[in-house]
């Protein structure tokens, strides 16, 4: 494997694990409610912006604070704020629409997404903000010609830990069992004594928490944050969830990584493949092409067993 391939592989893994974290939020909500929470990407943005605000505040109050402590504090503020947003959305809008016709919750979710963006635009303005890169971005060179920054390593490690944690939560804990039961069948679960409303709210909260972490990592990786930053990763994470098989946790993780790799390799080679006609500014279309192909040829995704007709 030459240095360039290895480099693309690493870049793909990094961005892929961020997609995977976001995709988990989509897939959990979809598994339980059959709803695409369109505003999920914007919860990510709220997380990143809140973290940014906290960091700026901390830098003003305690300039001598160690970067790791500062980042941790920022996360400790950003995660609950995002969770609150996720909970509020579910409680105020989606819960009332649970028995509404098919299109109503989806249209509401689109409205939610734009409402969050608009509110963020009002609070933080339209400009791109520099996101403080508290973890060093000086690249290390483990192999000649291959660069890995400490931020990227942290991203991979943190996502891996969170994914393991979530898998344990869903498969081993009491609330996890309740989640699986609710996903299987609402009514039966509630007859068995599961408080389905609480479980659904909990699912939104967990998903939002993961999105907040993903948002902070995404912003740290690129060093910028703004009100519309959640849109593209949100869409791509949705693609990842579909690619892996929506409703399936392992699928979301796999889908995220695969999508990250395809994007990274695609962006690297598109210019050569199309003889210079298309260049890396077309990077964003890979996700949509994959989405289209998966939905046509294998709507259940790589690992999904669910019937596609649920959509």
């Amino acid at each position: 494997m030459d240095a360039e391939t290895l480099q693309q592989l690493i870049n793909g893994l990094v961005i892929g694990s961020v997609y995977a974290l976001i995709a988990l939020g989509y897939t959990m909500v979809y598994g339980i409610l059959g709803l695409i929470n369109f505003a999920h990407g914007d919860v990510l943005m709220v997380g990143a912006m809140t973290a940014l605000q906290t960091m700026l505040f901390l830098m003003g109050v305690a300039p001598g604070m160690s970067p790791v402590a500062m980042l941790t504090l920022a996360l400790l503020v950003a995660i609950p704020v995002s969770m609150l947003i996720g909970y509020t959305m579910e409680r105020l809008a989606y819960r009332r629409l649970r028995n509404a016709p098919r299109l109503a919750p989806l249209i509401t979710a689109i409205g939610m997404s734009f409402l969050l963006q608009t509110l963020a635009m009002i609070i933080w303005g339209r400009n791109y903000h520099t996101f403080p890169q508290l973890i060093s971005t000086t690249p290390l060179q483990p192999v000649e010609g291959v660069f890995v920054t400490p931020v990227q390593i942290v991203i991979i490690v943190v996502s891996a830990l969170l994914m393991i944690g979530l898998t344990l939560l869903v498969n081993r804990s009491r609330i996890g069992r309740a989640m699986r039961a609710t996903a299987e069948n609402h009514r039966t679960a509630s007859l068995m004594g599961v408080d389905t409303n609480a479980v659904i709210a909990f699912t939104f909260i967990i998903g939002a928490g993961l999105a907040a972490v993903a948002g902070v990592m995404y912003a740290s990786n690129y060093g910028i944050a703004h009100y519309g930053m959640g849109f593209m990763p949100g869409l791509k994470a949705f693609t990842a969830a579909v690619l892996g098989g929506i409703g399936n946790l392992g699928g979301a993780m796999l889908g995220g990584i695969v999508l990250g790799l395809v994007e990274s390799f695609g962006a690297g080679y598109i210019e050569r493949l199309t003889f210079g006609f298309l260049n890396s500014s077309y990077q964003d279309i890979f996700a949509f092409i994959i989405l289209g192909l998966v939905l046509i040829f294998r709507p259940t995704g790589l690992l999904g067993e669910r019937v596609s007709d649920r959509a």
Partner: protein
Amino acid sequence: MNELAAAVPWLGKRNPTAARWLILILAIAAPLIAWQFGRSWVRILDFALLYMMLALGLNLVVGFAGLLDLGYIAFYAVGAYTFAFLASPHFEVHLPFWLVLPLGAAFAALAGIMLGFPVLRLRGDYLAIVTLGFGEIVRIFMLNLNYPVNITNGPQGIGMIDPIVLFGWDLSQNLQITEDFAINSLFLYYYAFLACVAGSILFIRRLQISRVGRAWAAMREDELAAKAIGINTRNLKLLAFALGATFGGVAGCLFGAFQGFVSPESFSLMESIAVLTMVVFGGMGNIAGAVIGAFVLALLPEILRHIAVPLQQALFGHVLLDPEVLRMLLLSLAMILMMLLRPTGLIPARARYAHPENLHRSSQP
């Protein structure tokens, strides 16, 4: 027209004929009234008519056939860019309007079928995301196809597009009636667009009560049942996409010619969402709903712009919420609140051929 007349408050139910005349007079007099407030308001009315065409076309797809399309603005873009390619100095091609308009419509319809084929088997939410992706792909291509061969001129867009010329009559020139009396070109465009909207309403109305329209309604309510009674849902979906796209394409051509300039900025996702909000706000599956939704939501942001900005300046000394933010706020809130409080829209669609006990159900999307 009947639905529209019935929607007139108070008068609509009592005296439909009078309501019809009232609408007609208002539609004709509207630019004259707007002119009193300044020429920019006539321009806003012109754009409101274009939005009406878009809303009517999207209503065909979303309201009649029940296919949620979030990339509708892409067809508008196809129409506008077709016009820009074939009637501007960009390629030094200047084809006549009557040739470009059908071409724009045809290309948009083709794009609609191209989008339709892969998404035939998808329903509801998947369809929404794929169409959204389609819209984004079209926009990405418009933005980037200026290299290595300059086709779309990238983010700068294409300018100096030829105006609409009907039988040698240039709509962009003021019409000189006598020495000192001329009809402003904005009025000419207004009446041309009004004719297009009226034609569209007529066509769509006939379509709605035709065999095709009823088959769409059946498909929307229950696809499986529709298939079971022998409806070819595949062809009907393609037809819905193609016809909806045609309206988008025609509106796009008119937009390109009217504005004289197209750029990818005008075809963002926000515009797709705006048109969708108009349909949802007015009432899905309902012609009057689409027309009124488009009218209200195209005008309201402009009215807000003229009221809210001076108001904020007076109250706080500076502008807190700029007009664009206000527009987004208005649209997103309209979408959410409509779905929560009145999911059938401002003017709920009347279900035809429905059993009375099912009325509440079948009038929903």
